[in-house]
């Protein structure tokens, strides 16, 4: 079952679309689930399908098409590191190596305590600040250096 909070959010989203086009809200619905649970299980997709009156497979198509949906648990905080051209030229490999040494996880993995997960990301559209990573797809962090990463992780540890 979708939580009352998610249902509220989807209902608010649905106001943007014609009543017979409820499936337009599918991307938002998936996002609301991920915001609340950290990832999207197939059961959640089935619930969304039922809520929006669309085929389950159509929800699954959308969820698997877009990279920013987590289809398995990715820890409390998901760090997504951009590895596209600009970031790579500016040293994203070092960012990944530093995060791996610090957290002991590679791409697609979660720390043993479930706090952090790391994913490989696509261009975040802010190449002037390369190398980049995002926190939970919401907060963009640029010009990453080991010191800056330490600082970010320290803040995240506190919260």
């Amino acid at each position, binding site marked *: 079952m979708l939580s009352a909070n998610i249902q509220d959010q989807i209902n608010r989203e649905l106001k943007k679309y014609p009543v017979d086009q409820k499936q337009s809200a599918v991307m938002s619905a998936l996002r609301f689930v991920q915001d609340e649970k950290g990832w999207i299980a*197939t059961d959640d*997709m*089935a619930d969304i399908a039922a809520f929006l009156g669309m*085929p*389950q*497979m*159509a929800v*699954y*198509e959308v969820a*698997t*098409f877009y990279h920013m949906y987590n289809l398995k648990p990715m820890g409390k905080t998901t760090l997504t590191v951009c590895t596209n051209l600009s970031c790579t030229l500016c040293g994203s490999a070092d960012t990944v190596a530093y995060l791996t040494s610090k957290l002991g996880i590679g791409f697609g993995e979660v720390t043993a305590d479930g706090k952090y997960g790391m994913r490989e990301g696509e261009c975040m559209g802010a190449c002037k600040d390369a190398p980049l990573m995002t926190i939970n797809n919401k907060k963009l962090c640029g010009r990453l250096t080991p010191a800056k990463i330490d600082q970010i992780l320290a803040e995240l540890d506190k919260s």
Partner: protein
Amino acid sequence: MINIEIDGKLVETQRGSTVMDAAHKAGVYIPHFCYHKKLSISANCRMCLVEVEKAPKPLPACATPAADGMKVHTHSEMAVKAQKGVMEFLLINHPLDCPICDQGGECQLQDVAMGYGGNASRYTEEKRVVEPKQIGELISTNEMSRCIQCTRCVRFGQEIAGLMELGMANRSEHAQIMSFVNSSVDSELSGNMIDLCPVGALTSKPFRYTARSWELSRRKSVSPHDSVGANLAVHTKDNKVVRVVAAENEEVNECWISDKDRFSYEGLNSAERLTRPMIKQGGQWIEVEWAAALEYVANGVNQLRRSAGSDQIAALATPNSTFEELYLLQKLMRGIGSGNVDFRLRQSDFSADGKQDGAPWLGMPVAELNTRDRFLIVGSFLRKDHPLLAQRIRQAVKLGAQANIMHASDDDLLMTVTNKAIVAPADLPGVLAQVLKALSIEKQAAVPAEVADVTVGTEAAAIAASLASGKDGAVLLGNFAQQHPEAVQIALLAEQIAVLAGAKFGYLGGAANSVGGYLAGAVPFGGAVQGMSAAAMLAKPRKAYILLNVEPELDMADPQAAMKAMNSADMVVCLSAFKHTGMDYADVMLPIAPFTETSGTFINTEGRAQSFKGAVKPLGDARPAWKVLRVLGNLLDVPGFDFDTSEAVRDEAGIAGNLSNHIEGLALKGAAVTPAGLQRVADVPIYAADALVRRATALQKTHDAATPVAMLHSSELQKLGLNSGDAVRVTQGGVSVQLTAAANDGLAAGTVRVAAGHPATATLGAMFGTITVERA
């Protein structure tokens, strides 16, 4: 109309049509995979790239609208270079396993690769591998690596079957066709995806590795199951049917067939096939020669005629029998002086017999369903009873038609339903009366006196308003309405509604020869000798029964009455393709040929007579039933039984009978009293509807063939103190069976849905009536 030039040929084509359409008109072939005339355009395979003058690059013919004066080259250097390039890309990931691929020899990709592919690949890297998925018992996805992602199967689900069961997950290199979390594809039309797949990614599970396509002989045939009369191509190898695929007939089945039409052939090769005539002597079945068996039948019939009178002999046939068989059966019966012949086995209201103007039919050509703008569908398990008619109605609804449903069970029709009235079976005529009254008022016509007193409910008013607002409506009666104990009242009300609404009135025919049976005269009225209806023959048991294809406990409206009559009869003669429970009560079993082994005719619900030839020789000593009946006629000295061919039988019978749904001389009745207690709602599950499909092994493993459960509305379950999943004892006519209870909130209050036509429920009573449910 606009003019366009394709490869130098001038073609006139409709504005808004595509270059591909115009090319078809001009007879120019453009290679393609994802394009299909019945599906939406997706333009994702890019194989149909052509050169259009003044366009800077090649354009996909399937998605490019034709414009006046357009000049298209399909074989120019630019076009061929583009097509070859696409072909090379498509072959990058396609495995070179044609020698072991089921599609080999009938593969679009293979054919097009012959024309446009290189003789070697420049690609030396690893090919992608896609894991097989489990999507049910009918379609194999074991070699999904072969998929070229044309998405025809996905679009078929969305647009034709009405439910998107397959989809394309992930993207780019990782894109895969799959179902949601390995759920099975349960559409009753799913097999068409196998035909649609241009490569060997979706293959037929029952057929896999049985034969190579070039070893097969292809014979045209007609489906013996539902009343559409879908055209089939029966593929045979070594005198055995190994596969059935769709044959195109735009006016009947378009290019689709239902899974029942496609996979029921497995029943033809069933171990239960009856292959030798048998006589029961001293409680033991012994195999005999045909001459001895027929002699035995003739002697038995003659003895009974003398001792008890011809009236004591009765004949029952399924509506899946051919027109010729039905004609000869009734001719034989009338020849020996008995009018007791009927093929309407599941019908329970015979009060209109002799009062109909003609054979009840669809009231319009099948193809006209697509053009209706309003539907009132009364008492129909539409999707399961008429998969292809449901598909046509679905297309009409997509174009804006309104579907109104009146039934005891709110099954998902996979289309938008505008209004529905879900009521218990006994209330069905009452709601129709409400609609009639509301529509009379709406149309400012005189309200018929019989319905003047009814109170119009909101649902009936909404249905009436919907019908009144349309121009080309259709009021259709389904199997449930035709089997209803008040079927004639329902028909009378429906006809008046149709007349008021200016709509066509029709019956969704129950089976392949529901119209043909009437035209063949296989009914107890209208002939020289009047007789008893199917129900009367059981109510007043006869001394002898001749059963043509009938399994009484599964095919009849009241299995209890049927079995009682069979068990008490002095002689029962079964003409059957299969061994069945007749082995317990019959005296003679005569092996007859199923539809692939005989010639014959089916007259579908629109009155279209379609004759077919046998595809293979009869199995063992089985013989076409028309030949068996002919010899019986000769042995019984009935004149006019000297037919050389089934065509001669057909021509004597005459296929051009009168079709009419009008009933003369019967008046509407007032409201009926609702009986106390739970009412039975009996569907005949799609894969339990006739003897052949009951023995189709793969179909019997699907969800639609699951053992029947006792379905009740959750409020009814609560009243009985039951939960979904509890074992319950269902009792009707003094016999109980144990079933599992299941909640189904689509059912009307006061009803229990217990399927008929299945061995698990075959000892229960009539398909309609009261029934009790209690904790087991």
